């Protein structure tokens, strides 16, 4: 390469991929298969959503472990320090009650998974089933069953969080409105559906007393802390390793009861035990997501200006909390971020978490934002139709244009390109041309529609943002340890825990630019608590911003050391030394020394180092930013088949602003995956239970992720707004695809069906739901059933 070429900004092919595409990636099941003598676990799970355990009977002498097998074990409980929060404790294995279908009651161990399943079938759990409560609205009824009997619920039956916020002039804003739009938004239950379900291998080494947990997980350090706390042992007795992880999306962020039980069992039996979750278990009882309802009222002027917003949000968080972020993340994020990028001064919100006899909820790509964005974007389109405005026009009238901006909740929004991305999306679709085509199609009885979705994605937020949620366990910072070894190659040890994002490639690009080496010379070590600095892992669209920022800071320190040594060696001033092409050269001259030579001196001739530089080339840095908003506009074009309710996606356009893109190809990959999951959310995936709590979508025959046949080409255009909220200039982009897509799709369906007066406010908008809306609309207009 020539001097001065930057690696940052180039779509370098990912270093991670050759192994993965050749089948050489080592996932936890591969690691389990490698070890001879590995035992396999299966969990005996509750078949009912609610009940009292009368007895657990196992074949005599069978290795069946229940809560009684682990007397010293603690419950799992993370807390928020707020008066409107009720902490829920989760036993590792059910003790005297079961509270959701699939709750783990016992663990059995055998020589193979098939034999473990045979044994699990022979364990008889006698449960006195009680009436369950499955729906959040029903659960708050004082007459409804109480999920956690004996727990004080001062805010109402099963209400475990009831947060409120209001500015002072909300009522006045509604009094002054020309038009008040009311919406009921419903987002049904989903599963994040990583291709690899959860899985772990616990290996106890009696010679050292240490247990190594190899696990599909996003937060290895947090997992180790949690295991130590729950098992009441020191962290030095544990090592957590995350090998290749086959997708996570939040589902592998929170600590699973199964992993804790597995470690406890391995320690009890002095054995190596694997638990590789199957798809049925995963759909039933891993973690669920969404299941929110929003009642929204918007006060608008005739011109479409939003004067006030009033929201009542209810999140069905299932039977238990999660560790470490708690169920509070769902309602609190919804409440804090609902207004989004729309300038608004009057905002009132009530946001509740309700416990039910459903599988617990954990964050899933976007967490509350896909739903809150759906709510706001449906509000904009519905208001536009009422006020006879264009959807682009009403958004332009309300989008934030001047920065810094603060949401009514006080949340600061750094510079972005909200109006610009909207305009670019309208242009990419040729909106005027589309409207003409739409009219021609209408004349043929066809229903075409377009939908927009504008949103900001809060990313890369550190400790202060989490502290604002009053979390007892407050995540946020990341540390990067950087070392140049004697050959001049670089090792970066990071607390972040990438699992498919390509972070190692992107960090290598960034470090290469800072240090004057090639990306190939950088190896990134992650996912092992024995070899990496304590950190929070990879979630919440944070790694490029926070681990990237820490890498940049560490690289600056290492570069300073290299310059210092080179300057001493070349008898120049450190300020004149440039690091490029694996060399340190005196600026404007050809005088230089190679980086391997400096590295040799630092490690092997350290007596030559200038004081006060210490031997070796090892530095460390931590970054803990306040957060930065990336933003995007999504636009979908659909055709709705009025006879079947089927929605065909014709086009999907994304104008994305992720700030500085270290590797644009990786950014696009994140958007493609996210949009696909957003389309799944909008049209396909739904966990359905019957009135008795039985999961009816317990396999991939009925829980339907879209395939390549259903997802159109996703057309991505990049915009880059650089702000100083992120020291690298990069903004997070991991969740945006999933956040924006549902609203764009539902807006497009509503636009297509607007001749019938239909607004679609429930997702997924399945064919049967859409057809039902059409049937009702047709019977209203024609007076009979068509």
């Amino acid at each position, binding site marked *: 390469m020539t001097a001065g070429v930057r690696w940052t900004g180039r779509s370098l092919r990912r270093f991670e991929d050759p192994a993965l595409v050749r089948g050489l990636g080592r996932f936890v099941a591969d690691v389990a298969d490698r070890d001879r003598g590995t035992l396999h676990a299966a969990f005996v799970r509750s078949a009912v959503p609610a009940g009292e355990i009368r007895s657990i009977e196992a074949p005599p002498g069978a290795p069946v472990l229940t809560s009684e097998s682990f007397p010293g074990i603690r419950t799992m409980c993370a807390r928020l320090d707020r008066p409107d929060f009720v902490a829920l404790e989760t036993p590792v294995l059910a003790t005297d009650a079961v509270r959701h279908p699939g709750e783990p009651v016992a663990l059995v161990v055998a020589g*193979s*998974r*098939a034999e473990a*399943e*045979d044994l699990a*079938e022979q364990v008889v759990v006698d449960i006195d089933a009680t009436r369950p409560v499955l729906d959040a609205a029903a659960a708050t009824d004082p007459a409804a069953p109480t999920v956690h009997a004996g727990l004080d619920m001062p805010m109402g039956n099963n209400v475990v969080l009831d947060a409120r916020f209001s500015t002072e002039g909300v009522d006045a804003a509604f009094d002054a409105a020309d038009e008040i739009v009311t919406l009921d938004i419903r987002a049904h239950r989903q599963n994040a559906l990583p291709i690899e379900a959860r899985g772990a291998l616990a290996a106890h080494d009696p010679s050292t007393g240490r247990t190594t947990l190899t696990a599909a997980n996003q937060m290895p350090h947090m997992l180790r802390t949690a295991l130590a706390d729950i098992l009441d042992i020191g962290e030095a007795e544990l090592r957590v390793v995350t090998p290749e992880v086959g997708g996570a999306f939040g589902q592998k962020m929170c600590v699973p009861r199964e992993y804790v039980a597995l470690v406890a069992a391995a320690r009890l039996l002095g054995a190596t035990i694997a638990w590789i979750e*199957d*798809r*049925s278990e995963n759909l039933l009882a891993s973690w669920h997501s969404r299941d929110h309802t929003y009642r929204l009222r918007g006060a608008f002027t005739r011109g479409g200006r939003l004067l006030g917003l009033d929201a009542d949000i209810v999140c069905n968080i299932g039977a238990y909390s999660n560790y470490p972020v708690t169920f509070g993340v769902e309602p609190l994020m919804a409440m804090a971020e609902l207004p989004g990028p729309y300038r608004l001064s009057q905002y009132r919100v009530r946001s509740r978490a309700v416990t039910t006899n459903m599988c617990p909820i954990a964050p899933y790509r976007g967490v509350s934002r896909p739903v809150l964005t759906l709510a706001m974007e449906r509000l904009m389109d519905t208001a536009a139709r009422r006020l006879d405005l264009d959807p682009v026009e009403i958004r332009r009238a309300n989008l934030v244009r001047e920065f810094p901006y603060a949401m009514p909740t006080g949340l600061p929004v750094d510079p972005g390109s909200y109006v610009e991305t909207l305009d670019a999306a309208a242009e990419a679709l040729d909106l005027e041309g589309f409207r003409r085509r739409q009219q021609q199609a209408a004349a043929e009885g066809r229903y075409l529609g377009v939908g927009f979705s504008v949103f900001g994605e809060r990313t890369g937020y550190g400790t202060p943002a989490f502290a604002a949620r009053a979390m007892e366990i407050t995540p946020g910072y990341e540390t990067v340890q950087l070392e140049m070894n004697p050959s001049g190659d670089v090792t970066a040890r990071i607390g972040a825990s990438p699992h498919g994002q390509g972070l190692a490639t992107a960090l290598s690009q960034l470090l290469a630019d800072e240090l004057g080496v090639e990306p190939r010379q950088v190896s990134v070590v992650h996912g092992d608590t024995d070899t990496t600095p304590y950190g929070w892992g990879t979630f919440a669209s944070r790694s490029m911003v926070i681990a990237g920022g820490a890498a940049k800071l560490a690289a600056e320190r290492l570069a300073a050391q290299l310059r210092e040594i080179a300057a001493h060696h070349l008898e120049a001033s450190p300020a004149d030394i440039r690091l490029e092409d694996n060399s340190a050269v005196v600026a404007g001259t050809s005088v230089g020394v190679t980086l391997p030579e400096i590295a040799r001196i630092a490690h092997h001739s350290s007596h030559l180092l200038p004081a006060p530089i210490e031997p070796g080339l090892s530095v460390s840095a931590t970054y803990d930013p306040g957060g930065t908003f990336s933003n995007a506009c999504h636009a979908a074009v659909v055709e709705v088949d009025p*006879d*079947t*309710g*089927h929605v065909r996606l014709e086009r999907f356009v994304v104008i994305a602003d992720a700030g500085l893109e270290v590797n644009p190809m990786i950014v696009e990959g994140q958007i493609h995956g996210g949009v696909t999951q957003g389309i799944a959310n909008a049209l*396909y995936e739904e966990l*359905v239970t019957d009135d008795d709590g039985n999961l*009816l*979508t317990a*396999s991939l*025959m*009925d829980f*339907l992720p*879209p*395939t390549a*046949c*259903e997802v159109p080409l996703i057309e991505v255009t990049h915009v880059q707004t650089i702000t100083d909220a992120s020291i690298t200039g990069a903004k997070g982009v991991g969740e945006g695809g999933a956040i924006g897509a549902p609203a764009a799709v539902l807006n497009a369906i509503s636009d297509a069906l607007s001749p019938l007066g239909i607004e679609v406010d429930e997702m997924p908008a*399945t*064919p*049967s739901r859409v*057809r*039902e809306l059409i*049937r009702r609309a047709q019977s209203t207009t024609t007076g009979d059933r068509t």
Partner: protein
Amino acid sequence: MKPAAFEYHAPRTLEEALGLLHEHQDEAKVLAGGQSLVPAMNFRLARPSVLVDIAHLPDLDRIEATEPGSVTVGARVRHLDLEHNTIGGPLGSLFALTGRWVGHYPIRVRGTFGGSLAHADPAAEWCALACALDAEIHCRSASGSRSVGAGDFFEQMAFTTCLEPDELLVGVRLPELSDSCGVGMAEFARRWGDFAIVLAVTAVERDGDSIAGARIALGGVAGGPVRASNAEAALAGRPATAGTVAAAAAAAAEEVDPTGDIHGSADYRRDLVRAMVTRALDQALK
């Protein structure tokens, strides 16, 4: 998701296979392409203690014109072979049209025609085709053989046929369709390759501008495939117009009695029947 323990047999002759079925009766299951049975065993929804794999039986993989005016499809002819129109004529076209809706490509590579009929999923494409054409299903056992019309073969209960535990479906005889016969197939599923929510298979005999007679079979609306006989009656002798098609589709929607499930209510399925019958007839009349 691992199967319960089972014994596996791979007989080399039909007699050996029939002997195993006779010996093990209810305990045994026939394994052909394994595209439905194996997942069911992994879920432990099916737990046969004996599997009789017919992959090595000779002759069952042929498509033959055994007698004039008909074609016999061997039990383990793969979906893909039928999709590739190895038969020719309107019957071959109907097989090709229908075959592409059977699962996904890898499923069509392994799955078999006979296996699909014996499995009798109410939304299976081949079952509806067999029903539409009044196929004759040949069954063999250690004690003899018989042929059963499709109307009697499928019980109106999901996954249930008249096959006895010791019987093996060996082949299916279908009538050739005349050159004046148009064929159509329409299916609605949530995703490409999924089981149908509703499907319609049609074969329409033309007589100039009018319709001499029509066969319509539906899947996904009952425990097994059903004929839409009122709709067929609404077509016979009528002019081949959009109005006739609409009337037949309305009759089909009226005469079915579907039940609802998570993918759609009974009313929704009726709507789909109307839409799919319309589309399949339009295709047949094109």
